[in-house]
Structures are given as structure tokens and as C-alpha cells.
């Protein structure tokens, strides 16, 4: 490690690093704008100037840019030397000549990197008397506000948006000091990562529009580490909450990225950032609701719909307790339906209460089969599950029918970085440091090979893919099987028996690709296979597993394989069930076969909208067969209409719990704020019921009695670890409620949190004792340890002089390194098992003339919870049937036409949407829409087109 001298003190620094990053890693304060830890240096802003001395005799030295200068062993530098300070001050003064007088009305104020750097450079007074240049703003969609006057032309926005995230609708326009960062015309920023501009831009040009609607300063946000609940990637987030206008409740104000090198680094996607508003939705349940007796009049409600009224929790709990007692006496059957969008703790509590035999996953059998297939593949020792930096490191990538940009967006962003590895290798050869961003990007060199096979074109891969082929799922499966065979076959022709001749012949386009893909993958040093549950086709997963296993065998090392799960805790939920168990169809079947002598059934439904899982008729019939339905949920979702009793459950930022992401990482989210009304974690309702006097008959030997021992969330976590062996590392996800730093809890509020004697004063001037938190290592107030640098539990990223999120380097083990104090994230500890011979199941083949219906995903529209967020809800496309242009032509479908499709047992009519982004012979059906939640439940399927309704031709001259 080189040793350098800065202002007379010696330091050891990382070899090959630039001076700016080294200084920051050492904890020294050096201002900068254009450098970004994930994007490297371009030397554009001239803010990071320092003095470099030739040797110890050199008294004058020369001015160099810290971000552009590599550390030199024995180098002597000065940050404090007067010429350097003066230069930096002059640069800031120059930047500020045009800066508007906006801080008080700027959402960035208080966490503004420009403010911080101005302070740091000592510039205080505007001497320039000339005019300020001004700009007009643009409308950039429902997420981002634009205030161009505040720009300092550091170019970070376009470097992130275009170079890093591959967007092409934001650019640097204009010239000289009038350069403009925006779109060619007004319109929504198209990239799914546009929200990161809020954090990347060091000024208030791009700010969070949803946050602005209920804005408070960063110092007033109370926060704790959380995990994004909007997909299976499990990005770490720092939601911020604050007392609302009423002075009684707190609400969620925004979500920002929380640096965790292995899951999300510096960036999250827009669904994760703007999906939070569901927690403030008008549909939130805050009280316990009970169905009213009177029948809904047929004309105003649907059959069996129930109207609700509020009841006091003790009465509801007593009722639930009675039901539990009845079930213990065999007079009632309790059935629990779990959920992939809530924590392990909630699911486990329900399972413990009703018993494993009465616990169902709340997923269709097909969804569970998908998860089990995925789980099985991940268990194989030949498969390794990559972290985000490992994905960024891959050199050859194969994507098999997974729309990764919409089902696991953060992973797609990592793929973009992987595409540049050839360039980086080239730079290494030329000894160009990788942080020399502009230079590295100049290097010639093809993108790293990314091969995409998909039934519908995935988002944002087209421009980096070496080959993207659209084909039916069946063709992709046989392609992958033949690919696996070919990979294992080379040199060892003996091992291939049985995997070849039976497979379907490939279309030409794929046949040609086969050789190239096989060769490229074989020559790869760090190949990566990507697939997932998005195709809803277990064969696709199985085939991806085969390819990865074959590669691993050939390379003699595990093959990195990323398989996406649809929801935030899908993989965790699946661990509670053996293969073939726990599907909703099984429950329905059991209920159908119930004898009249069997006890009546009470369904306990946990945070799950079953209409997304099964065709509506099946869900109705499930509810019809239950004597009583008890729902625990945060939102009034469609199932609440059928519930007899509804308990208000907390949203993810209102609760503590563990989620298992698609990589099998166990991650804990902490309560950021207390939910309003009677909201609490679902498991607490169950515990409260078991502790109710009406339940006193439940004997200590009954499994349900275990619930009585749970007081704090960590108790449940520990119980899961003891009960289910793959979760045995759960307690390592975080400390229990007794954790203290020097005798103190961690403070959720900043030391500057304001208004504590006024927030509630209008309804009670006498201050109440602050809320205490017996359940976590955090306190709800500013009392406690502030900005604990050495624990990853710190979610408020702040350091003296660093009010913006750029302060993160104070919390890392060196710039870009892991968080200080961060242990490796614990993972599922599954029994290794070899991938079984996962031969494609003989499915009822597609008859000629039939189309294959495949699911298509939307970044904004397929996420259950994010669909309840205002900003996102407005962006979802409606239900439609996507058809290939050629097919549409052959069928005579005209624009605006509708398709009537018949599958086995169902018929649907949908407006058609024609494009080249879908494979021929395939019809794409959007899944997860709020408007048509159960479309996905029928997929994949073969269907024939029964009827085409073309729009009525409008007769010329016909008047309306």
C-alpha cells in the first residue's frame, strides 16, 4: 500500500486510487461535485483541487485535481495550502454567480451538497454584480420536479442517466454557461431509475415531486433501516416519516436509497422510491372492522359483499380468541393463508397458530411450484448466487425469458455495468485506472456478450444485448436444453445421453445462435445466467438451471445464477412448504370435499389479495366455503369485501421483520414510525388473541401456546430460527431490543429534529412522554446515539459538514466498500441437493392455430402495493393482449381492435395492442394490474382466438 503525506501527516492508502477518493476514505474533507463513487471522475467541476509537491524541498507545489490524480507512493500533498483553498473558493464563487436565491424554497435545502461544499470552501458573500442566467423548467412526469436555475453543470445527471443507467431522453443541451439539462421536450423521464437523479444531482435541480407534496427537511425525518417491499431484489432503503398535520399520527414522507454494497449500492429503482405512498393511502385500515349484519342490497354491492363498522379491538380479539379456543376443542377448523409480501415473522406466527397442516402459502400451486423449482436450483452446490457487485463483474450473460428490467430492476442496472467489462479489461491492460470514467468509456471494445431470449422484449436490454431473440417459451426451453447439452458435450460426448433428440427442433433464428452462445459461455471466465419466475413457466427455470449446472461442470466452479422471485418475501414463504404442498388449489379442494359433519372453517387471511392469485370464481368459492373470514391487512383490498373481521396490519416501514430476497439473503427491516390508529404487526394481533382471557383454555402443550412467549419481534425471529432449520441464521440479521451503544439506544430522529413542543400542542399543550420503543434497538426520539458510524443500523446518513447523502463515505470501509460494522448478510442455510433431472414436463402441447399466452410485466402496474401509490397508479397501462405485428396482420386485426381468447375453461376479451416487442405465436397478457388482477392467474396457457372485434369503420360523412 502506498504511503502518502497530506498536510504533514502520513497515511497508507489504497493502490491506484485517486487522491479525492483516498482523502474521503481517510475521513478528510475535500469538496467535490462531479466525482461520484459509483461513476468515477471526469474532472469537470475543478472543485477538488489540492496541491501536489514534487518532493519535500518543493515549497510551492502545483495545483492538481484530486479526482484526476492517482496516488503516488511517497507523494506529498496539501489540502490546506492557501493556493488550494483559494482556488476552491474561487471555483465555488464562480458557480454561485448564477445560482438563484432559492434555498428557503428549495427541496434540497438542508441536504444540499452544494450548500455543504459552499460552506466547506468558505464562500459566504456574492460579490458578482452581473445578471444571473435563468432557465425555464420542464415537466418531467409525476416523479421528478425540475428547477434548472439551480444547475451548476457538473454533468452528474446525464452521466448517471445516460452512461450508467442507459436512458436516452435526458441530455445536456445548449452550450457554454447556458448549458441545459433536460429533455428535448416536456414529458415523463422514461428511465425506470430516474428517481436516482434526486440523489445524484448535488443541487436542487431534480427533486422528488411526491416528497414535495408533503415536504419536510431532512433533519425532521425520522428514519430507520428498511428493505424495499416492491420486488424480490430486496434493496435497502431509508424511509423517512414525520408527524402529520393532525399532530396525532405520523406518516411516511419519502423513501431514499440506503447504501448496502451487496444488494443495491447507491441506487434503487423508481418503483422502490415512489411506491411508498401506499402507506399513506386513503385505503389504509386503521381500526378493527367487523361485518355488519344487514345484507348489502343487491344493486349496490356484489354478491356476498360485506359492509363493515369499526369495533373496539378487545371485542374483536375476544371473538378471535373464542374461535381459537373452539378450534382447540375441535369445534372449528382454523386455516391460515400466508403471504409473500409480508415478513417471515407474520407468516410464522400464523403457521404456529393454525398448525403446519392448516397453513397455506396464499399462492397458486403454479406459483409455489415455480418457487420450489427456483429454490431447488439454488440449493445445488454448482450454483452460486451473485451479489450486485458480482453481477456487475460478469463477463458473459445469458438471460432466459425474464423481463429483468421490470421484475428485478436493480439487477438490470447491474447488468448494464457488466456489459462494460471488456472496456474495463482493456483499460486495465493499458493501465488506465477504472475511475478515469471518461477515458475508460472512450476505449473501443465491444460490449460484453449478453444474450437475451424472451417471449416478450425485456425492458432496457436491447441496446446492450449482443443478440436478443423473441421466441415462444417452449422454443426457449428447448434452446436452453440443447445449449446445456452442447456445453456438457464438448470434449465429453458421453454425458449427453437422453437430452437431445427428443427436444423440439429450434426455429432457425435460435439454431444459429446456439453455437455462438455455447462457445461464448464456455470461454467466459465469469458467466452469469439470469432467469426467474417472471415467465411463470417452471420449465424455463429448470432449463436455466441445467445451463448453469452444465457450465459449472465444465468450469469446475459454481456458476453465478440469478433467479428472480416475484415478491419481497416469496422465497422465504416457500421455505415453509415442501414441494407440492400449500397451494391455494389444494385448500380449495379440501374445502370442497368437506363433509357436513366437519367443523366450520375460519379462514385467517394474512396480507394477501387472493384475487391476484386465482381466478376470481375460485376465490369466491373459497370464501363461500368458509364460515368466517378474518383478514389482517394494511389496505382495504378486494378481499376485505368478503371479510367478517378485519385487523389493521402495519406496512413494511411501520414494522420490524425479516424478508428473504431472491438471493436467499435474510434482511431485517425496522419500524420507522408507529402506524396510526390500532395498526400493529399482524403477528401481534395473533399473540394478543392467544393472550386474551377467552383463550385461557389453550393448554401449554398446544403449539399455539408458543405465541404467549413472544413479546418482542426478536422473540419471533428467534423462534423461527429454532423451528425451521434453513432459517437458523435469522438472529444474525440484527441485534435484539437490548442492543445499546454505550448504554444508549440508536436515535431515529436527528439531533436537529424540530417542533417537539409544538407538533401536538394544538390539541394538548402539556407535552406527553415521548413514545418509547421496547421492541428494537432504536428510540423514537432524538434521544440516543446519533449518527453511530460503526453500525449499519444507522439510516440517517449525516456527518458534520456533510448534510447530503454524500456523507455516506463517512460510513463506509473506504469509498465504495461495505458499510462499517456490516457483517456479511446471512443467507438461507439450505441443504445442498443436486438439481434433479429437471426434464421438461410433458405439457399439453399447443395445437396448431393456438397462441401461447405469456405474462408481461410493468415496472409501474404489476406491483401490488405500489399500485396504491398515487404517482405510480397513474402510469399503469390497462389490460390488453399484446400481439406480434405479423400475427396481427395475418389475423386481419386492425388498430383499436379487441381479441376474444378461449383457454381451457375460460374466455376473456381484451383490447389488442400490436407491436414487435412480442414473439410471433405468442400473446402477452399483463399481470398484476389493479384493474384486472387475476389475468396472471390463468397464465401461461394455450389459447385460441375465438373472435376479433375490429373497430366499426366510421363512414365518411356520417355525423355523430
Amino acid at each position, binding site marked *: 500500500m502506498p504511503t502518502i503525506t497530506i498536510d504533514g501527516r502520513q497515511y497508507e492508502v489504497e493502490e491506484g486510487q485517486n487522491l479525492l477518493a483516498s482523502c474521503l476514505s481517510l475521513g478528510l474533507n475535500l469538496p467535490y461535485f462531479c466525482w461520484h463513487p459509483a461513476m468515477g471522475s471526469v474532472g469537470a467541476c475543478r472543485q477538488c483541487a489540492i496541491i501536489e509537491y514534487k518532493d519535500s524541498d518543493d515549497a510551492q507545489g502545483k495545483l492538481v485535481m484530486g479526482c484526476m490524480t492517482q496516488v503516488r507512493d511517497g507523494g506529498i500533498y496539501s489540502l490546506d495550502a492557501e493556493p488550494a483553498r483559494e482556488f476552491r473558493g474561487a471555483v465555488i464563487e464562480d458557480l454561485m454567480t448564477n445560482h*438563484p*436565491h*432559492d*434555498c*428557503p*424554497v428549495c427541496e434540497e*435545502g*438542508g441536504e444540499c451538497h452544494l450548500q455543504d461544499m459552499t460552506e466547506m470552501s468558505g464562500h459566504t458573500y456574492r460579490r458578482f*454584480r*452581473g*445578471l*444571473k*442566467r*435563468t*432557465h*425555464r*423548467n420542464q415537466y418531467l412526469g409525476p416523479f421528478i420536479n425540475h*428547477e434548472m*436555475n*439551480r444547475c451548476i453543470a457538473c454533468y452528474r445527471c446525464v452521466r448517471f442517466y445516460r452512461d450508467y443507467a442507459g436512458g436516452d431522453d435526458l441530455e445536456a*443541451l*445548449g*452550450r*457554454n454557461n*447556458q448549458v*441545459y439539462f*433536460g429533455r428535448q421536450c416536456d414529458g415523463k423521464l422514461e428511465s425506470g431509475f430516474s428517481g436516482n437523479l434526486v440523489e445524484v444531482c448535488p443541487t436542487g435541480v431534480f427533486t422528488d415531486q411526491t416528497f*414535495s*407534496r*408533503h*415536504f*419536510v*427537511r431532512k*433533519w*425532521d425525518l425520522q428514519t430507520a433501516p428498511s428493505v424495499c417491499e416492491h420486488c424480490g431484489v430486496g434493496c435497502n432503503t431509508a424511509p423517512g416519516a414525520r408527524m402529520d*398535520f393532525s*399532530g396525532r399520527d405520523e406518516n411516511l414522507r419519502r423513501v431514499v436509497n440506503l447504501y448496502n454494497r451487496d444488494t443495491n449500492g447507491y441506487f434503487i429503482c423508481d418503483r422502490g422510491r415512489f411506491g411508498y405512498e401506499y402507506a399513506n393511502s386513503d385505503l389504509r385500515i386503521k381500526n378493527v372492522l367487523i361485518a355488519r349484519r344487514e345484507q348489502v342490497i343487491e344493486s349496490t354491492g356484489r354478491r356476498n359483499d360485506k359492509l363493515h363498522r369499526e369495533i373496539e379491538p378487545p371485542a374483536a380479539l375476544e371473538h378471535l380468541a373464542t374461535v381459537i379456543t373452539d378450534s382447540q376443542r375441535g369445534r372449528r377448523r382454523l386455516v391460515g393463508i400466508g403471504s409473500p409480501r409480508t415478513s417471515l415473522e407474520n407468516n410464522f406466527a400464523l403457521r404456529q397458530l393454525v398448525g403446519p397442516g392448516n397453513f397455506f402459502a396464499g399462492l397458486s400451486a403454479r406459483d409455489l411450484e415455480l418457487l420450489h423449482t427456483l429454490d431447488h436450483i439454488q440449493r445445488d452446490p454448482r450454483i452460486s448466487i451473485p451479489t450486485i457487485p458480482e453481477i456487475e463483474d460478469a463477463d458473459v450473460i445469458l438471460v432466459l425469458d425474464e423481463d429483468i428490467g421490470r421484475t428485478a430492476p436493480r439487477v438490470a442496472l447491474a447488468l448494464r455495468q457488466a456489459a462494460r467489462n471488456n472496456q474495463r479489461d482493456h483499460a486495465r491492460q493499458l493501465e488506465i485506472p477504472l475511475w478515469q470514467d471518461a477515458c475508460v468509456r472512450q476505449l473501443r471494445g465491444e460490449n460484453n456478450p449478453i444474450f437475451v431470449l424472451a417471449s416478450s422484449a425485456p425492458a432496457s436490454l436491447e441496446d446492450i444485448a449482443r443478440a436478443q431473440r423473441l421466441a415462444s417459451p417452449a422454443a426457449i426451453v428447448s434452446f436452453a436444453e440443447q445449449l446445456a447439452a452442447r456445453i456438457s458435450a464438448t470434449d465429453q460426448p458421453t454425458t449427453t445421453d437422453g437430452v437431445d433428440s427428443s427436444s423440439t427442433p429450434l426455429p432457425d433464428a435460435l439454431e444459429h445462435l446456439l453455437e455462438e452462445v455455447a462457445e461464448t459461455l464456455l470461454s467466459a471466465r465469469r458467466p452469469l445466467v439470469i432467469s426467474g419466475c417472471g415467465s411463470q413457466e417452471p420449465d424455463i427455470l429448470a432449463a436455466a438451471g441445467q445451463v448453469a449446472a452444465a457450465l459449472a461442470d465444465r468450469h469446475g466452479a459454481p456458476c453465478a445464477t440469478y433467479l428472480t422471485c416475484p415478491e419481497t418475501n416469496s422465497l422465504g414463504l416457500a421455505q415453509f412448504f415442501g414441494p407440492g404442498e400449500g397451494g391455494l388449489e389444494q385448500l380449495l379442494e379440501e374445502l370442497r370435499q368437506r363433509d357436513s359433519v366437519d367443523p366450520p372453517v375460519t379462514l385467517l387471511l394474512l396480507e394477501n389479495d387472493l384475487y391476484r392469485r386465482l381466478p376470481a370464481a375460485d376465490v369466491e368459492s373459497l370464501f363461500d366455503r368458509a364460515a368466517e373470514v378474518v383478514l389482517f391487512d394494511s389496505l382495504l383490498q378486494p378481499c376485505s369485501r368478503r371479510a367478517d373481521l378485519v385487523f389493521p396490519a402495519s406496512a413494511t416501514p411501520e414494522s420490524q421483520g425479516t424478508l428473504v430476497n431472491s438471493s436467499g439473503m435474510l434482511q431485517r427491516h425496522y419500524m420507522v414510525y408507529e402506524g396510526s390508529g390500532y395498526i400493529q404487526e399482524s403477528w401481534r394481533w395473533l399473540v394478543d388473541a392467544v393472550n386474551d382471557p377467552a383463550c385461557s383454555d389453550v393448554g401449554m402443550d398446544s403449539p399455539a401456546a408458543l405465541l404467549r412467549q413472544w413479546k418482542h419481534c426478536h422473540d419471533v425471529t428467534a423462534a423461527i430460527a429454532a423451528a425451521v432449520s434453513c432459517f437458523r441464521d435469522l438472529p444474525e440479521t440484527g441485534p435484539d431490543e437490548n442492543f445499546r451503544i454505550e448504554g444508549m439506544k440508536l436515535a431515529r430522529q436527528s439531533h*436537529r*429534529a*424540530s*417542533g*417537539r*413542543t*409544538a*407538533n401536538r*400542542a*394544538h390539541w*394538548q*399543550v*402539556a407535552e406527553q412522554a415521548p413514545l418509547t420503543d421496547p421492541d428494537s434497538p432504536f428510540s423514537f426520539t432524538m434521544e440516543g446515539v446519533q449518527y453511530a458510524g460503526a453500525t449499519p443500523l444507522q439510516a440517517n446518513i449525516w456527518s458534520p459538514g456533510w448534510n447530503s447523502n454524500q456523507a455516506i463515505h463517512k460510513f463506509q470501509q473506504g469509498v465504495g466498500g461495505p458499510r462499517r460494522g456490516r457483517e456479511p448478510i446471512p443467507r438461507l442455510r439450505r441443504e445442498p441437493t443436486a438439481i434433479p433431472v429437471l426434464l421438461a414436463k410433458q405439457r399439453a402441447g399447443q395445437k396448431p392455430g393456438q397462441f401461447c399466452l405469456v405474462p408481461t410485466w410493468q415496472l409501474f402496474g404489476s406491483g401490488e402495493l405500489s399500485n396504491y401509490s398515487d404517482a405510480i397508479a397513474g402510469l399503469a397501462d390497462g389490460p390488453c393482449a399484446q400481439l406480434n405485428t405479423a400475427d396481427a396482420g395475418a389475423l386481419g386485426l386492425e388498430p383499436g381492435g379487441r381479441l376474444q381468447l378461449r383457454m381451457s375453461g375460460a374466455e376473456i376479451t381484451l383490447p389488442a395492442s400490436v407491436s414487435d416487442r412480442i414473439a410471433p405465436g405468442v400473446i402477452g397478457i399483463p399481470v398484476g394490474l389493479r384493474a384486472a388482477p387475476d389475468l396472471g392467474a390463468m397464465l401461461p396457457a394455450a389459447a385460441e382466438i375465438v373472435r376479433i372485434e375490429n373497430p366499426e369503420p366510421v363512414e365518411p360523412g356520417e355525423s355523430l
Partner: protein
Amino acid sequence: MIASQLRSMWLVFRHLFSRNATVEYPDEKPYLAPRYRGRIVLTRDPDGDERCVACNLCAVACPPDCISLQKTEDEDGRWRPEYFRINFSRCIMCGLCEDACPTYAIQLTPDFEMCEYDRQNMVYEKEDLLISGPGKYHDYSFYRVAGMSISGKDKGEAVNEAEPVDVRSLNL
């Protein structure tokens, strides 16, 4: 020793002839300078619009944390407090809010006579705080110097601003 006592007595005696500093309050009210730090008001700009832009700086500066407000944005593009509350039963009249305020909105006045039998009455909302004039600073209007456009003041129309750039021109 005796000398010192005599000297003290002389000094005290001399004060018999100096002017009274105390007055017969409340019958007689002393003069308080306009900069005296008493009851807080929210002022208006010279055009009669609310000055406060809900920037939260006063709230964060306040040592007893007795100011609470929420930003909202009006149709005309201005930031305003949706509510603005001062709990005067906590206020220590330190004037830090006034120091912090970038718009001269919040000002302390020479009125210190705030006695209530019910402490709850010491909680003032925006309606109670807002006065109709500009207080001590007659001319300042934040939005005339700020870069944000509001209705009636477009980009380029603030003090010291150039015409907005037309990105599509050559901008030589």
C-alpha cells in the same frame, strides 16, 4: 473599613437624587424599542402576501422546539405554511427564529404581555400570528429576488436576472 462603609452609604444616598429607572407598570408603560424581543408575529411582504415560505429554518433554530409548521405549495407556485404554530408557553423569546428567517417573515415585537389562565391559550396558530403589514422590514420581498417563478413573476423577472435562455438558439 469604616471608610468603605461610609463610602457605600454616600453612594446610596446620592442615588436618592438620580432619575427613577422603574415605572409604575401597568399604569405607566415603559418605552420598548422596536427590536425588543416579545410576542412573535408573521408578517406580509410589501404586496400584502404572506412572507413565510415554510422553509422550516425558524423551527430548527428554535431552542425549545416550540415552532411547528408544514410546507404546502399554492396554485400560484408559492410555498406557504399549511399550518404554522408557536407554542408560546415554551417560547423563550430568544429571537433565534427571527435571526434564522431568510424572508423576514417571522419577527419579534415589543409586546410581552402574554398572560393566560389556561396554558392551552398560549398556542398560536398562523391565523393568530399573521399581521397585515411588513413589520420592521418594509421593502423586502423574498420572491422578488428568488429564482422560482410564481404567478405574476416569470423566470428572468426577478431582481438581477437575465432573460431565460433559449436552449434552441446558438447562445453565442
